[in-house]
């Protein structure tokens, strides 16, 4: 069973989102996604300052057997990228929801938040995929 914290929001493409309350949101990939991909060997992140549109590919997480694009669930300007991952991509495996975050974005359109899944809906999605 994968770990799906209830305070986070999720996407169908397995990103998680934490609303930070200062107008920004943090994005990473779910525990389920990191398990499927396996040992992470490289993470490519968006440059701080980049302006993204919701649904745009903006990062790549790479294991030895797969490379997966990460799509930003929200539009806005990137305010930070997790530099720790440059030297320690395995953090995405060991701590997907905390130190393994990918990037932080300044929200542009609060309405986009409504499109996200809550933990319950995401858990259902994962359960379906497992079949």
């Amino acid at each position, binding site marked *: 069973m994968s770990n799906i914290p209830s305070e986070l929001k999720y996407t169908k493409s397995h990103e998680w989102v934490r609303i930070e309350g200062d107008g920004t949101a943090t994005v990473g990939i779910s525990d389920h996604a990191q398990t499927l991909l396996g040992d992470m*060997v*490289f993470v490519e992140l968006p440059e701080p300052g980049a302006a993204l549109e919701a649904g745009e590919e903006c990062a790549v997480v*790479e*294991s*030895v*057997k*797969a*490379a997966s*694009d990460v799509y930003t669930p929200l539009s806005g300007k990137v305010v930070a990228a997790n530099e720790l991952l440059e030297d320690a991509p395995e953090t995405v495996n060991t701590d997907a929801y905390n130190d393994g975050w990918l990037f932080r974005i300044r929200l542009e359109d609060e309405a986009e938040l409504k499109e996200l899944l809550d933990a319950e809906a995401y858990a259902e999605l994962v359960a379906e995929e497992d079949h």
Partner: protein
Amino acid sequence: MPFIPHTEGDTRAMLATCGVDSLEDLFDEIPPELRANALDGIPAGCDELAVSQLLHARAAQNAQPLCFSGAGAYEHHIPAAVWEITSRGEYYSAYTPYQAEASQGTLQLLYEFQTMVAELTAMAVANASLYDGATALAEAVLMAVRANRKSKSRRILMPRTVHPRYRDVVETIVRHQGIELTRLDYDTAGGHIDPTSLPTEPGDVTALVIPQPNFFGALEDADTLTDWAHAHGALVIGVVNPTAMAVINPPGEWGGAGADIVCGEGQPLGIPLASGGPYFGFMCCKQKIVRQMPGRIIGATVDLEGKRGYVLTLQAREQHIRRSKATSNICTNQGLMTTAATIYMAVMGSAGLENVARQCHANTRALIKQLSAIDGVETVFDRPTFHETVLRLPRPVNGVLEELAGHGILGGVDLARDYPELGHALLVCATETRSEADLDAYAVALREVLA
């Protein structure tokens, strides 16, 4: 049937296991209307003896006059050990080393190959080969567009001193990706790119290609060109001859920062001329852009017990994982040719390769001296050359070459089609395989032909 070991008894027993009566039954899922008639147009099979006789006859129909042609394919001596070892079945009949534990021979050899190529070019890393020099340049152009994130123009400066066929291949391969290839003209006195002719405000340039030596055999001012490119935010792609690298300043040391991507034709490193292939392309780059490099890359690692071993690595760049977003579609590369090249470099060593390079240079100088002493023959450019140069003849080159063939001489490459502005221009080359007597023979024949 050739190469099928089954006895009649085997076939019968195996069909029974499959639960069918005949071989035909195994094809019952193919819609009958698709079934082909006999293979008209294919001759009946032959024994090895008969095929051998035919191929010997065909080989004898090829004539091999004394060769003074280069233009990207060079006749060098190949130590006997190179192909004796390369032809071992364990190299010859192995697949791509995907099962690393069963392919340590090939993988370690390729790791050594990457090291040797990186040493020759003074670059950080190399891949395990591309198809040939021309496609390697095309891949280098595509790589530069990926690697130069600051440049948005997808504009590549492509000098006319780059091999014309390489430029053709680049055009074929990159044309669908919105890349602009801007021609750079050469200096008619030097036969090189004159750095002072480059614009001071070139705009957004993605990369500059620098051939060394260039197609005319001339040596480019690679240091100044490299610094110019870097000053304008462009990457530098070097296209180099590996033999020349033994004596010429390598691209990793060009200018202040060195070339970013280097590629070239590997044929001079122990690969026979063989009518143009198989050869292999090599590619190197700076460490920081290695993830943008196409082709297979071998890395060292350890096994369960901590013992050193080798695997294909960074595979997430490649088509079998990354599919439509791969760095290239290349899969099968030129493995066996890199095996030969690795053994060639090991057998020759740095000193051996340097001696070969020096002899090529000396022979070409001697040839230029002899031929340009003939009435009406002159050198076209004044830049120093490595082992090839352009001569101007008093009349059309193709007629002269035909007459030289009558004297048993392949006298070089006619440049009329690619560089009509040069007049009756001939590209000649003399490698270490040409003796003094060979050079004399060429001079005597040319004198006679032009008389």
